[in-house]
């Protein structure tokens, strides 16, 4: 009898459904209503419309109140002007009289002045009377006392509408199946905060880009505008004019930097991953010690080692050659560190299997390990490019023809007020390259990360 109610074959459920049911049963999450996108969109649209309508109405009332206040102010001002001008005419008249007394010859002029003064008096009086009449017509709005409430209400409604609109957008964009342990309000708060912080983070960058597009008069305008009113590329063309007049052609600096960056990065990736591979996957005497030394070296900044480094390079006769920049870049500790950390995530069984199949270390490294750590080498490429692109290397490179782009640009940037526009352009160029490289390779990183689901 008891078995009767149990269905013979239960409907097929996915793992997620079972999980969800279980959690509902345990009372750990509430049964959520099915989320109807269309309905949600319509209702939120109506709510937003109502909010906007309320804002418009409030704004209308505020406008009438403002008009009334303006009229009042104008009335007061007019009264003040009348008083002032009366005084002025009186003083003018006295001055004129005094002048007349001193110089009889200018009697005619004095008379004319007095005449003019009286005329002015008459006209101002007439104006004043008309204005007071006009003010008399304006009624005091009935809800004048509510004005502060209106203002506060408007502000609240605007903030509310923005927040609600943001919430709706997030709700609509969010993936269909939510993670069971996330609250909507938590998501909302986090996204809102992220948005605010993102605006703060990006503002100086946007500002410097817009500064490079401003003509000179707008660069010095106060208060400053965030976006240029008449965007020009003048700053950039000026910069190229300055560069083309320099002793060494501009393209030389560019080639130098590109060469350095390319060779330095390639060598760094190769050498660092070779070292990282053995450090991560083999247990050999001295390996651990070496790695801990590398980690410690990570903390020594370039300023600290600058002086002894120069002495060593001059002993090796590398001063004023590209090697002085490239060779230290090959051995940058950060690349090795990152690579080793990533390679430790690789399953050891993979390498053991390759060993059993008779592959040598070189082959394992080249055709098994390297393809599997793509995200890591993209990351260290970014770091290497970023640091090499920004080296000005002023301490180790002396000949003009070997100088890097950033160094040449910084020389222009130091040109003072006359080169403000060009300096802004330089900032943008120097900034744009690493950011662009990052944007391009970042999508690669995300892609490789998503597809590389290796589990041990």
């Amino acid at each position: 009898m008891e078995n009767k109610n149990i269905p013979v074959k239960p409907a097929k459920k996915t793992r997620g459904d079972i999980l969800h049911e279980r959690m509902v049963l345990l009372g750990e999450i509430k049964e959520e209503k099915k989320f109807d996108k269309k309905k949600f969109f319509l209702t939120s649209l109506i709510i937003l419309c109502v909010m906007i309508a309320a804002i418009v109405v409030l704004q209308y009332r505020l406008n009438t109140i403002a008009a009334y206040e303006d009229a009042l102010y104008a009335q007061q001002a007019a009264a003040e002007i009348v008083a002032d001008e009366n005084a002025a005419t009186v003083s003018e008249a006295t001055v004129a009289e005094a002048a007349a007394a001193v110089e009889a010859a200018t009697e005619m002029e004095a008379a004319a002045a007095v005449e003019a003064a009286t005329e002015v008096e008459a006209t101002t009086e007439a104006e004043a009377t008309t204005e007071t009449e006009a003010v008399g017509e304006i009624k005091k709005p009935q809800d004048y006392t509510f004005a502060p409430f209106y203002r506060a209400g408007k502000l609240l409604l605007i903030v509310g509408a923005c927040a609600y609109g943001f919430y709706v957008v997030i709700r609509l964009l969010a993936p269909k199946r939510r993670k069971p342990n996330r609250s909507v309000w938590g998501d909302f708060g986090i996204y809102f905060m992220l948005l605010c912080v993102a605006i703060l983070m990006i503002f100086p960058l946007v500002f410097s880009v817009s500064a490079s597009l401003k003509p000179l008069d707008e660069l010095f305008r106060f208060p400053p505008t965030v976006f240029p009113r008449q965007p020009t590329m003048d700053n950039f063309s000026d910069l190229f004019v300055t560069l083309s007049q320099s002793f060494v052609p501009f393209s030389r600096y560019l080639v130098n930097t590109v060469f350095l960056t390319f060779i330095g990065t390639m060598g760094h990736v190769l050498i660092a991953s070779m070292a990282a591979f053995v450090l991560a996957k083999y247990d050999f005497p001295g390996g651990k010690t070496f790695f801990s030394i590398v980690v410690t070296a990570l903390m020594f900044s370039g300023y600290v080692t600058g002086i002894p480094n120069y002495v060593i390079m001059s002993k090796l006769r590398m001063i004023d050659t590209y090697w002085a920049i490239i060779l230290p870049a090959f051995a940058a500790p950060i690349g090795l560190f990152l690579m080793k950390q990533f390679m430790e995530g690789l399953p050891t069984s993979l390498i053991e299997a390759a060993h059993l199949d008779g592959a040598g270390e070189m082959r394992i490294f080249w055709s098994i390990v390297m393809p599997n750590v793509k995200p890591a080498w993209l990351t260290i490429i970014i770091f290497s490019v970023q640091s090499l692109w920004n080296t000005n290397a002023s301490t180790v490179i002396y000949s003009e023809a070997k100088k890097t782009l950033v160094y040449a640009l910084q020389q222009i940037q130091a040109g003072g007020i006359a080169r403000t526009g060009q300096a802004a352009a330089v900032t943008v160029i120097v900034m744009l390259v690493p950011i662009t490289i990052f944007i391009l390779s970042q999508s690669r990183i995300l892609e490789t990360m998503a597809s590389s689901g290796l589990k041990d």
Partner: protein
Amino acid sequence: MKSFLKTYVEMKRETIKYNFAKAKRMKICYLFLLPYAVLFTTFFILPICTSIYYSFTQYNILEKPQFVGFQNYINLVLQDEVFLTSVKNTLVIAVITGPIGYILSFLFAWFINELPKWIRAIAVVVFYAPSIAGNVYFIFSIIFRGDIYGYLNSFLVDFGLINAPILWLTDPNYMLTVIIIVILWMSMGTGFLSFVAGLQGVDRAMYEAGYVDGIKNRWQELWYITLPSMKPMLLFGAVMSITSAFNVCDVPRALAGYPSTDYAARTIVTHLFDYGFSRFEMGYASAIATVLFLVMILCNKAIQSMLRKVGS
């Protein structure tokens, strides 16, 4: 005792023999390591060692270094008041920007990780851009300018919060705060990027197991699942943030001037810069560098032991 020593020496000899044999067998490993090791030793280890050696000498590049013992260190502590100011400033900056920058970059990486894919891509760029944008922080010298034309001053005066413009970058009372703000703005650096990468690599199955085991909200999930599986990244981020927190040099030099009013924005590295590159007292500068290095190593050890407790 004697027999004990004897066995000890024998054991040591055995281990050395064993290691040597192992090393001989794993020759290929050393071959792989060799190019990096050679370059690394030349450009990172050797300079550090010479720097430590110079710190015990008086050296001005032209003459040969003269050995003076601990004189440089004694001068540092007893005679150089500016050095003590710089230590104080560096500690203030490091204690505030280090942990806050570290926590912020982890939190933002974690928040960003929950976003839909394409927004996440944009957000990562937005947050990471300030730290790779070269010397864009120059723009802050306009924002914090001391006269009424500085953006912040004019903004505050317009709102009636202050009556007269504040000399943000010249007044010793405000300098450090401004510098800390700018450094925090730039703190989403290498560590942030590694957090983003690490968060994406956390095993999804762990989260599902977490739901079943009764993890109720995102904070529990963070503490019990996400953080423990991100330990390598956390360690790396800590090292990076210590490095950047103690090696503050460019920002105060660009914003507060060099030297700054009353040395109020002088850090250990600017002090080192002053002695090394302006006065050419290399021995003294090396002593400063060694002190900085020791402080950083100690900090790193402390943080590592703290990170071991994460998720337990």
